[in-house]
């Protein structure tokens, strides 16, 4: 209820009552806002990060490495030769001999499997040799690897290890599961490190650098809070321990 109804002395000052003030202030406020909006730059400038280019080569769709054909052949002094072209003329060094005079670009880093004839057939260099001394063509490399890497071979057969290209349809003729040596170098099967492609730089994602474990406290309010709590509890524990030690040895 308005007080002016009962207090005649207030009637004269009605021009200043709250309603009138509001009625004047609101339009004035709107006017000021309008002015500010109209004076603002017409285009909001969105700062854009420079884009990172990725060479098409880096994301090409192909097996990680090119496996030797079957039967294998390599270029010797620029001439394409089958393996047996040389190996049937020249005798190989003893199986225990590891220092290579030829093929010396081969880096052998296959764990304890460090003898050529563990895998290569000593008599026919265009075939591979199994442990029972039977030989297989290069195209059947997974059988050779399976002798030691049984669980991986089982996974590969199921399709849970390795890479499949072409089609996801199991009955499709385009579907092709890559062999062991199309990803792994048989002489050094461990993957070498990669240089990662550029990290994202999306404005929405904030500054580059992300939340590292070390400066998590700077970025995350929760981490800051937890750190503060930990510090306080450590301080109070220390204080309690101090008091206790004073109590024991006055």
């Amino acid at each position, binding site marked *: 209820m308005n007080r002016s109804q009962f207090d005649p002395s207030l009637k004269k000052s009605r021009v200043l009552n709250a309603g009138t003030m509001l009625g004047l202030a609101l*339009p004035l406020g709107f006017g000021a806002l309008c002015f500010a909006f109209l004076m603002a730059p017409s285009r909001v400038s969105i700062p854009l990060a420079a884009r990172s280019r990725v060479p098409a080569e880096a994301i090409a769709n192909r097996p990680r490495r090119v496996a030797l054909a079957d039967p294998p052949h390599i270029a010797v002094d620029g001439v394409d030769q089958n393996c047996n072209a040389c190996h049937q003329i020249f005798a190989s060094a003893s199986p225990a001999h590891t220092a290579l005079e030829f093929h010396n670009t081969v880096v052998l880093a296959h764990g*304890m499997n460090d003898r050529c004839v563990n895998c290569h057939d000593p008599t026919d260099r265009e075939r591979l040799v199994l442990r029972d001394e039977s030989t297989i063509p290069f195209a059947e490399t997974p059988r050779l690897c399976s002798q030691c890497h049984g669980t991986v071979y089982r996974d590969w057969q199921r399709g849970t290890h390795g890479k499949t290209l072409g089609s996801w349809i199991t009955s499709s003729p385009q579907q092709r599961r890559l062999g062991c040596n199309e990803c792994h170098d048989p002489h050094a099967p461990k993957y070498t490190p990669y240089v990662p*492609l550029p990290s994202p730089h999306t404005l929405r994602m904030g500054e580059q650098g992300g939340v590292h474990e070390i400066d998590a406290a700077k970025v995350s309010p929760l981490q800051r809070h937890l750190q503060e709590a930990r510090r306080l509890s450590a301080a109070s524990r220390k204080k309690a321990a101090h008091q206790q030690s004073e109590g024991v040895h006055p």
Partner: protein
Amino acid sequence: MKDVRIWDGPSAATDEAQTASNPTRRSFLRIGAAAVGGMAALAAALSPLRELDPEDLPDVEEFLQKHYKEMTAVEMEAALARIRANVADRFGVEPTIRDPKPLDGVEFVYALNLSRCIGCRKCVHACVAENNQSRSPEIQYIRVIEMPRGTLDVEKGDHHYDRPQVPDTAHFYMPVQCHQCANPPCVKVCPVEATWQEPDGITVIDYDWCIGCRYCEAACPYWARRFNFAQPSLPADELNPDMSYLSNRPRERGVMEKCHFCLHRTREGRMPACLEACPTGARKFGNVLDSKSEVSEILKTKRVFVLKEEVGTLPRFFYYFDERYPNTIDPEALVIAEQLREEEGDAFGAMDVGAAGRLVIARASGMSTEETCA
């Protein structure tokens, strides 16, 4: 008691009666100020229109186009023709745009081997090249999170890692993209039904129907949805002309987008682009309704988990591990092999690998050499 007025007192009624016939100075000021203020507010509210780019306005056909599910085949053909002309006009390339339908008896599932992922980000950039995302500002569907080994705490994860080489031995890598949930929260919150789940499990977006409210982005627990804040920029020479209506056709400013399992490829039997670029074979894709498919084998035989299972989204994107991780040689075996090499000399070297292996295992388990060979 008379009527209660909040701001004018009991004489307001007479005041108004006066105003109609003979306005006082006060009522004139009040009405005048209100009118000016109202106009000013209207002008202020409309001022963002000055920033409207004529390119942002849809043409009449696009404006009148129906929702994807309501379009007849003829109307879809007209829409595709319009998009084809737009793309040719904007990029100078004639695209092969089509609208592949879901296949019968197919439900797509993705599986990712965390033991194999090395964090090289090839999938991220293959996806960008395939799906015509904006290059600057950058839009990427896949986020590779680097996390400390022994944790699975995405809060401690970092997707901005910039190392000279990966993988880092103290971390593991977890790529996250749209999980194509069977119970998708993003679909539920869309106020205009611009996003929905297809029968083959892919959640799609009708870019012409999206109003850009970003509710879906907020609803997604996997940070999978991306918004075009600015007009997407895409150099004409990087445009992928192999496109479809629901997947990788060029988007406009103010619409949402996300991973769609490369449906223009996968609905035609091909593999997703991220899988083809992966150098380690960590990514597996297939039909979960086919018991012989790779993803079915993984679900049957591997240790599988889904991200944020507790939120109940039922993802179609599974993570799994191999039995042994990291895949390294037991260092003890190497020491024993070295000892044997010294003791046996060339005889050890001439052994085949199986015999040498048996010897190492025997030595490690405390048996004598004679016992093994016997």
